[in-house]
């Protein structure tokens, strides 16, 4: 008999820049162990995951973390009072801080999470990547956070163009000159705030790894993937699982050294000399996690088990050459649904 639980999660924005919510739900729904009621937590009332068949059982609107961590967590506790939550899975970088800080408060209320510690979160932050590389003996591109537009002029002393211009949470643009850096600096800082990170551009093939750490240094799962088709937002529209022992060893090394707790995504570039550069470490499950589920590692289910304190044996295999291909689909829904969510804050 399956164990009945309720999981609440964010990231229902299954758009051309998708959040991980829907693929995480698909993984949990496929569990042989859990019978799960899914509560969707939506920031916007047009997030497709709210309206997709068979995904969420109930949706609540929640305030953006930018309105204040306490306001967001209060809303979660308010939802929990009338619709009890067993496990909460935040799926956005920008909201993680609020939930990590409130982990004990949530735990006392009976809501389990399985998140990195604040120290782990900060350590792998884009702005701290050079120190991170040095500490763990990993190759990372040279990067520098900037907070003033007049710093752009001086970049030529430290960087060769082109450079990557990155937001602290999301967005990355390639810039070939200072004018393009300035344009992207303005665009990114208006959306995500400061600092903006300038990073050395490494030419090569982008590869990614989705992984799960148990917080004790063990890697519960890890699946490497290469993007085969990339959208203009830099997101994978299709990808394929790889057999690359070097990539997996690096993942194990990072999780072991950091004692990483929770889901993570490593973004790397393999240079033409076959050197691996870590470009980013995202502190959560990525939107392409369903490829790992399809390849034999149901990481969303394993994450829920870890959150509930259940024993999880590490995955020891996955299928190489498994592919995913995203698609778009026009979902038809009734105005009544939209109206209910917009006016009552729940659906």
């Amino acid at each position: 008999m399956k164990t009945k639980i309720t999981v609440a999660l964010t990231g229902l924005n299954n758009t051309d820049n998708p959040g991980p919510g829907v693929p995480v739900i698909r993984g949990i729904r496929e569990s042989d162990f859990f019978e799960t009621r899914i509560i969707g937590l939506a920031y916007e009332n047009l997030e497709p995951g709210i309206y997709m068949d068979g995904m969420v059982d109930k949706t609540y609107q929640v305030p953006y973390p930018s309105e204040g961590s306490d306001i967001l967590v209060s809303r979660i506790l308010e939802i929990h009072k009338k619709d009890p939550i067993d496990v909460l899975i935040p799926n956005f970088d920008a909201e993680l801080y609020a939930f990590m800080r409130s982990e004990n408060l949530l735990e006392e209320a009976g809501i389990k999470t399985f998140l990195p510690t604040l120290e782990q979160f900060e350590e792998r932050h884009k702005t701290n990547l050079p120190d991170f590389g040095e500490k763990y003996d990993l190759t990372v591109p040279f990067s520098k956070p900037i907070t003033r537009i007049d710093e752009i002029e001086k970049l030529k002393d430290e960087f060769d163009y082109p450079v990557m211009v990155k937001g602290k949470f999301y967005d990355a643009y390639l810039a070939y000159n200072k004018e393009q850096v300035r344009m992207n600096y303005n665009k990114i800082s208006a959306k995500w705030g400061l600092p903006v990170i300038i990073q050395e551009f490494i030419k090569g093939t982008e590869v990614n790894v989705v992984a799960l750490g148990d917080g004790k240094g063990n890697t519960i799962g890890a699946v490497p993937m290469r993007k085969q088709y990339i959208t203009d937002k830099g997101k994978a529209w299709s990808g394929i699982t790889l057999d690359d022992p070097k990539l997996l060893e690096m993942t194990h090394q990072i999780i072991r050294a950091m004692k990483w707790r929770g889901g993570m995504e490593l973004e790397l570039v393999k240079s033409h000399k076959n050197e691996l550069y870590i470009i980013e470490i995202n502190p959560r499950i990525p939107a392409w996690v369903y490829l790992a589920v399809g390849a034999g590692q149901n990481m969303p289910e394993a994450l829920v088990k870890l959150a509930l304190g259940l024993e999880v044996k590490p995955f020891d295999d996955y299928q190489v050459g498994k592919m995913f291909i995203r698609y778009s689909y026009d979902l038809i829904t009734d105005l009544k649904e939209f109206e209910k969510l917009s006016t009552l804050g729940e659906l």
Partner: protein
Amino acid sequence: MRIKKNIALSDTGFVFNPTTGDSYTINQVGQEILGFFSENKSLEEITPLMTTTYDIDPPSFEKYFFDFVSMLRQFELLDEENEN
């Protein structure tokens, strides 16, 4: 000359490199040459086999052969670490 052990080669000529995720299609002649590689045949052994099967002289074949090999090398399909 040898193709890396983990390279998947199907009967239809589809080649998949699981380390890089790249895939290629090779024609029948290419498949035949890769077949000779798996039998550990040298260029000296392959050339007469190909020039008797196809209407091509040895110097022309060798030119195309080396082009093909350099392409395999560029795509990181050759097992050069274990070359004798």
